[in-house]
């Protein structure tokens, strides 16, 4: 690993290749967040290629982390304290998704100039398929990634 260990914070490991930036986007980590964020893309691991994200001095709520599952269902999140992993968990896809993804249907009312937040129900977790609460359009894979807000 070419990036040094972090003292306190989280390590999001086993992110599918090329998804690290999207993961940060989902977690609303951009610009000056007051701590160090390291991002490694295309790292070789025992299970093939992966991306890794390390965020120092920052802990995320489990619910927040679970959003990652939408684009990185294989990800694991390690909580680090004093250079040691104190907690390790796999991401879980929530039952409902609100305000993270935009509906891909250009004729959906949520894509018009209306005061609503896009909402989806998760109809399948493997593969991830979500359904718009408004127009009932189903989205999966790339369609979800392309429409992350």
């Amino acid at each position, binding site marked *: 690993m070419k990036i040094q260990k972090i003292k306190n914070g989280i390590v999001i490991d086993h992110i599918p290749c090329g998804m690290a930036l999207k993961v940060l986007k989902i977690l609303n980590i951009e610009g000056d967040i007051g701590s160090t964020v390291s991002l490694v893309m295309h790292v070789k691991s025992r299970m093939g290629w992966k991306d890794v994200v390390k965020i120092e001095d920052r802990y995320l709520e489990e619910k927040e982390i679970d959003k990652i599952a939408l684009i990185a269902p294989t990800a694991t999140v390690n909580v680090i304290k004093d250079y040691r992993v104190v907690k390790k968990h796999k991401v879980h896809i929530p039952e409902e998704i609100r305000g993270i993804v935009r509906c891909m249907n250009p004729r959906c*009312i949520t894509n018009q100039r*209306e005061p609503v937040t896009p909402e989806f129900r998760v109809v399948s977790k493997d593969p991830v398929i979500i359904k718009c609460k408004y127009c*009932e359009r189903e989205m999966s894979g790339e369609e979800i990634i392309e429409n992350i807000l």
Partner: protein
Amino acid sequence: MFKGRDIVSIKELSKEDMEIVFEVAREMIPIARGERKSDLLEGKILATLFFEPSTRTRLSFEAAMHRLGGSVIGFSNPSATSISKGETLADTVRVMDSYSDVIVIRHPYEGSARLAAEFAENPVINGGDGAGQHPTQTLLDLFTIHQEFGGIEGLKVALIGDLKYGRTVHSLAYALSYLGAKIYLISPELLRMPNHIIRELKNKPVETDNIEDVIEEMDVFYVTRIQKERFPDPTEYKKVAGSYRIAEELLQKAKRDAIVMHPLPRVNEIDVDVDNTKHARYFQQAFNGVPVRMALLALVLGVV
């Protein structure tokens, strides 16, 4: 059970809910025909928000409200309202909600009825949202079949024509399958029912491009219009449209009590010769829009 409820998607109605709608609709028939008077909805106001043209849906809702002694306000030409000034649907709905007891909405964007239901305190009935849902049409279609055969389960229903773009057939297919009918999809290759709709059906439907294959077995022929605009080549359209035409001669091979339905308007998918046969039910079906909508209004307003 129905009081205050929104009717946005057919998928939100259980079999029991549908049975209740049919039962109330049956009782409404004499009132819908004008044979009996009713003041069931006296003092109640229906707001019709039609952002898109529609004759049958809007007028049958209006007729339904009037037949039950209620009144109607609304518009069918949004260019003459504040919407043309850029008002959001959410705001229009909130205002109209404060003027009325129940709202019917028809809007070109999908999901608009769901949005309206969120912003309105009173019940909202979806009168068609873009390519999305049109639950009252589905209910009147089901009611027509139910009236004819006394139930839906086990019936063989052929859905014919444009199964790709027609929203009516999508929700009808779902509801028929949910109620246990056996579905046959008959359409040209280009206008096949989309996979995401077929995936939601309880049993895999039989697909064919030839009506003759199934003509003898069917209880119901549900015919839809094949639109010329769907075909890049006009000669192809002519060829295809001709082969999905229901004529009297073809129906001679059908079961004696088989019925022919159509959401109307028809162009030439059903020969006028069929109108006078014992099979024709499309005008009855159009009329059924009134008692079914009367039933829904009475139910969501909590008077029955």
